[in-house]
């Protein structure tokens, strides 16, 4: 699978239009993040891919050829649902064993994948004794138990500690390197920004923004925060006046800190400050806006 394409896909549940003609292309070897507010249509789009919801119109294509999300197609995917709750009276190994049998994975794969997600020591414990993070790891083990060409992870970061997040990043990297299509749906966009290749923002059933994180940042054109630490002997008032010509001062949190918001296109003007003013600066940091703000800006633009 080199390209998985959703073409003008619409889904209607009674009066509710969950997806309104969404088109999207997912590529092999990329990690794609689907983001958007609750009710935007993320889960519906995933369910169309999984064959759980039939679209009212639109086409699903693999490498250009129209396909149905039938058994043959579903044999090629791995899936981690959001907030999955496996049977409490089964052991971790029994849960993975069932899904391995159902997906035709060899038995040796059960222990391998439990080892991979860090549950080897807990394999014989009942799921009811698992923490939230362990349950999420178990879900990941189920998604990974058989090789797949399309890996769909719905809110994969929920309840994960730092070790588990490191595991998740390595899983993403491995699947990217293996040429899989990886689709994530998550609200944790700031956490995932640096881990994904492209992302799409859904709002009210439509894709309102699509691109790599850098291009979306550029599109949002949010000011960057410039933190200036003046020298003790600097003429602070003169420095403030000079900086005011470049950006807008943000509320100052520290007695000595100067923080101003500067449009990215005007950052170079900081270099044009007089030598005397530049000499009064002990340290200067440029902090890009958190991706949550980029997300909010793009959504508000779409609204």
């Amino acid at each position, binding site marked *: 699978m080199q390209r998985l394409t959703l073409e003008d896909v619409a889904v209607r549940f009674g009066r509710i239009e969950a997806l309104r003609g969404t088109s999207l292309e997912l590529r092999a070897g990329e990690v794609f993040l689907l983001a958007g507010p609750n009710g935007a249509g993320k889960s519906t789009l995933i369910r169309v891919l999984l064959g759980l919801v039939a679209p009212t119109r639109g086409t699903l294509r693999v490498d250009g050829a129209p396909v149905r999300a039938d058994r043959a197609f579903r044999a090629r995917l791995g899936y981690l649902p959001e907030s999955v709750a496996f049977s409490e009276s089964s052991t971790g190994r029994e849960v993975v064993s069932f899904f391995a049998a159902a997906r*035709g*994975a*060899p038995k040796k794969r059960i222990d391998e994948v439990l080892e991979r997600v860090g549950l080897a020591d807990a394999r014989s414990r009942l799921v009811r004794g698992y923490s939230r993070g362990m349950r999420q790891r178990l879900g990941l083990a189920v998604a990974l138990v058989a090789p797949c060409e399309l890996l769909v992870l719905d809110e994969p970061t929920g309840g994960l500690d730092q070790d588990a997040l490191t595991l998740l990043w390595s899983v993403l990297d491995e699947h990217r390197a293996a040429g899989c299509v990886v689709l994530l749906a998550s609200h944790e966009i700031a956490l995932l920004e640096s881990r994904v290749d492209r992302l799409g923002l859904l709002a009210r059933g439509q894709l309102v923004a699509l691109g790599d994180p850098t291009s979306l940042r550029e599109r949002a054109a949010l000011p960057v925060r410039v933190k200036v630490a003046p020298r003790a002997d600097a003429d602070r008032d003169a420095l403030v006046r000079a900086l005011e010509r470049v950006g807008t001062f943000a509320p100052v949190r520290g007695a000595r800190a100067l923080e101003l918001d500067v449009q990215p296109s005007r950052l170079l003007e900081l270099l044009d400050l007089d030598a005397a003013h530049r000499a009064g600066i002990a340290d200067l940091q440029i902090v890009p806006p958190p991706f949550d703000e980029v997300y909010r800006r793009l959504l508000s633009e779409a609204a």
Partner: protein
Amino acid sequence: MTSSTERSERAPAPIFAFPFRVGRALAFHELRERTRDRWVLVISALFALLASAVGLYGRSAEGNAAAITGPSLVTLASLFVPLVALALGYDAIVGERERNTLGLLLSMPVARTEVIVGKFVGRALALCLAVGLGLGAAMLAAAPGEARTLAALLGPTMALGLAFVSVGLLVSTLVSRQSTAASVVVAIWFLFVFFYDLGLLAILVATEGAIGDELVSSLVVGNPTGLYRVSLLASLGGENALTDLGLDVSLPSASARGAIWCAWIFGPIALSAAALSRRALR
């Protein structure tokens, strides 16, 4: 794109590709899960306990064991087996839906009908174990000569249970919440086990018997619990047993009874499969 190394990790193809892989895995998984279900275990153990008590009581009634043990067990089973069966079936699909595992299950290369059949088979096997345990306990406790008579109850009792597992499965497919499913199956149990006959009696009284024996007989045997009771009481007590008990019911032929059992067992399964196949998982 899957690398060749990854492809080789798949299990080797069997010489005879046997379909129903997910269904088989599911049936086994369901059987194991049900045998750990506390409610099912408690009701089954209670049934086994009471059944063995019936067996012991019949044994103590010297010379009259045949008249006591079999009919008493039929009455006991007609109360307990539908309850065990409904407890086994009611959360089959809706439970998966609430745990968010139904989507995961259906995202695998499996037909939805296979999921329904796998669920049914696993739970049906658990039911057969519970019935076998109960009647087995009764056979061990009963008088030695009674065991063969009681063994004849196994098939119909399992059929009764399978019908109610199937009904529970249908309820589980149609509703959206497990608590709703539980309420519905309790209502079904009361309806089929208690109120159905009372309702018929009320109709007979209200119409002063004008609705006709044929229709009454059909309505009695149309209820799986009624069919179970009358066919086994007739079989245990001979042709006049029903009349002696004051039941003016004509028993349908063996093939008609088989057809009724099949309708109750397979009808709800087919409806469940159709409902799940048509349902979008929102």
